[in-house]
C-alpha cells in the first residue's frame, strides 16, 4: 500500500511542477491567443540565472530565486516589446513563427554558455534526509517546490480573479476592440502577460533545477512536454493547467510504477499521458476547463 501512496505523492509533485511550467503558456495564450514555443527556453534561462546567482555570485538561494524571477520578468517583457509588439494585428501564425525563431535564438545563446553543454546541480540547501510518513517519503526540496508552486498559482489565480489589471487581461482575450473602448491599453496587457509568464517560468525553472539538476535538454524539453498539459486543461484556464498537470503527473507515475516491467511493457509513462490526452479531447474538445464560445441567437 505504501508503494501506491509513494506513487501518488511523486505523481502530485511531478504534476504540480507541470502545472507551474504550463502556467506561463496559459498566461500568454489567455491574453494574446499565441502559443509560445520559446517557453521551454525561458524556463531553462530562469533555472540557469538562479544557478549563476546562487553558486557563482554566492547570493543566498531564497534571494536569488526572486532576483531571477525579476530578471526573466524583464527579459520576457522586452521580448514582447521588441519582437512581438509590431506584430499586433498580424495573423497569429506569424507571431507563433516568431516564437519558434526566438526559441532557436535562445538555444544558440545558451549553447554559448557553459550551461549548454555541461550538467550542473544545485548545492543542497535543505536537509538531505527525506520526510517519511508510514513509508511514504518526500524530499524537502520536493516539498518546498510544491509549496512555492501552490503559493504562486494561488497568487496568479487571485490576480486574474480579483484585481482590475488581471480582469483587464481577461477582457483583452475576450474582445480587443471593446477593451480599447474602455481604455485598456492592449499592447501593455500583452507586455504584462509575457512578463508574468517569464516570471512563472523562472520559478518553474528554479524548482525543476533544484529537483532534477540542470540539464539544458531536459529543461527546455519542458516547454514541449507541458503542451499536452495545457491543451488538456483547456489552454486558457489556470485551474485547468493545475488539474491537467496533476492528472498527467499521476498517469505518468502510475504507468511507470505499475505497467513498466510487467506484461513486457516499457516506457509507458512517456506514452500513456498522450493516449489519455487523445481520449479526453475526443470527449471534451475544449479541454477540461476550456472556454466555450458563447453564442446567442
Amino acid at each position: 500500500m505504501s508503494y501506491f501512496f509513494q506513487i501518488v505523492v511523486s505523481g502530485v509533485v511531478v504534476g504540480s511542477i507541470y502545472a507551474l511550467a504550463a502556467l506561463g503558456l496559459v498566461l500568454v495564450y489567455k491574453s494574446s491567443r499565441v502559443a509560445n514555443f520559446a517557453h521551454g527556453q525561458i524556463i531553462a534561462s530562469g533555472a540557469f540565472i538562479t544557478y549563476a546567482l546562487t553558486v557563482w555570485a554566492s547570493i543566498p538561494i531564497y534571494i536569488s530565486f526572486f532576483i531571477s524571477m525579476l530578471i526573466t520578468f524583464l527579459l520576457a517583457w522586452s521580448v514582447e516589446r521588441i519582437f512581438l509588439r509590431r506584430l499586433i494585428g498580424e495573423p497569429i501564425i506569424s507571431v507563433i513563427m516568431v516564437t519558434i525563431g526566438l526559441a532557436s535564438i535562445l538555444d544558440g545563446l545558451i549553447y554559448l554558455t557553459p550551461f549548454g553543454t555541461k550538467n550542473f546541480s544545485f548545492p543542497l540547501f535543505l536537509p538531505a534526509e527525506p520526510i517519511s510518513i508510514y513509508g511514504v517519503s518526500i524530499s524537502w526540496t520536493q516539498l518546498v517546490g510544491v509549496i512555492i508552486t501552490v503559493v504562486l498559482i494561488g497568487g496568479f489565480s487571485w490576480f486574474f480573479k480579483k484585481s482590475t489589471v488581471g480582469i483587464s487581461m481577461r477582457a483583452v482575450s475576450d474582445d480587443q476592440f471593446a477593451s480599447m473602448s474602455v481604455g485598456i491599453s492592449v499592447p501593455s496587457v500583452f507586455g504584462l502577460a509575457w512578463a508574468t509568464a517569464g516570471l512563472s517560468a523562472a520559478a518553474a525553472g528554479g524548482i525543476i533545477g533544484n529537483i532534477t539538476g540542470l540539464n539544458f535538454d531536459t529543461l527546455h524539453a519542458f516547454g514541449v512536454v507541458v503542451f499536452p498539459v495545457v491543451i488538456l486543461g483547456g489552454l486558457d484556464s489556470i485551474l485547468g493547467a493545475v488539474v491537467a498537470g496533476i492528472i498527467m503527473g499521476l498517469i505518468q507515475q502510475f504507468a511507470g510504477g505499475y505497467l513498466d516491467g510487467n506484461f513486457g511493457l516499457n516506457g509507458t509513462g512517456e506514452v500513456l499521458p498522450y493516449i489519455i490526452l487523445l481520449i479526453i479531447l475526443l470527449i471534451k474538445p475544449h479541454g477540461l476547463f476550456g472556454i466555450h464560445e458563447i453564442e446567442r441567437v
Partner: protein
Amino acid sequence: MAKAALQKNKSEQENILEVNNIEVVYNDIVQVLRGVSLSVKKGSIVALLGTNGAGKTTALRAISGLLKPENGIIKEGYVRFRGQDITNKLGTEVVRNGAVMVPEGRRVFKHLTVSENIRVGSITRRDGHARINKDYELMYRHFPRLSNIINRMAGYSSGGEQQMIAIARALMAAPEMLMLDEPSLGLAPLLVKEIFDNILEINKVTGTTILVVEQNARIALEIADYAYIMESGRIVLEGAADELKDNPDVKEFYLGVTQGGGRKSFKNIKSYKRRKRWM
C-alpha cells in the same frame, strides 16, 4: 474682429467637444468622412442620426481614437475635447481625457461576469478605491436589473441587459462625455425606451454630456437637445431636436410620417421611392 474672436473663444469654452472638418480615410484609400464638423455643448445630449453607411460610427470612432484597429486615420481637420487636441490620439488617452464610447452591438466581455465587466471599466482611473467602489454601487442604482445578475457571465444575459452592462462599464471610467453607438440596435421597443430613459437619467443626475449615434431617429430626438443628420459622410442637416422633429424632410425620411400626417394609400406608394437629394 476682436469681438468675433472673443465669441469664438467663448463658444469653445461651452463646447466640450469640437469636431472641425474632419476627413477620415481607411486603408489610405477609402474616404468615409468628408469634412464633418460638429460640436457638443457641455452637459447636453446630442444625437447623430443617419441611415446605414452614412458614417456615423466612423465619426464616433474618430472622436474616441478607435480608428486604428480598422486601419483608419483622420487625414484633415481636428478633434478637440475639453480644449485639448485629441486628433488621432490613442483610445486609452481619450478615455483618460474623459470621453468613453459604448461600442455598437454592446460588445460586453462575454466570458467575464457582470460585476467584472463593470469593474474593468475603471481601469484608467487613478482616484482611489473608495470613489471607484462608490461609483460601482451607483451603477446598480442606475440599472437595478443588473443587481440580480451580478455573478452571471455577461455573455448569457439578454440583449437589453448587455446594453446596460456596456453603458455601466463605460460610466465606470467616470467620463465627462459618454458616446453611445446605436444603443437601440436589436432591442425590443420597450427595452429601447427603458435604455433611453436610463441615458436621460444619467445625463440629468450626473451631468454627463451625451453624444448618441442612432438610426432610430424618433427615440433619439425625444431625449436629445440638439441633433445632426449625416448622409454619405457629410453632415446634411443640424438643429435643435424640437425643430428637427418638425422639419418636413426629417419627418418623411427619418420618422416615417408623411406631410399630411395621415397614412399613405397603396396608390401613392411610389412616392416613397422618391429620394431626397440633400446635395
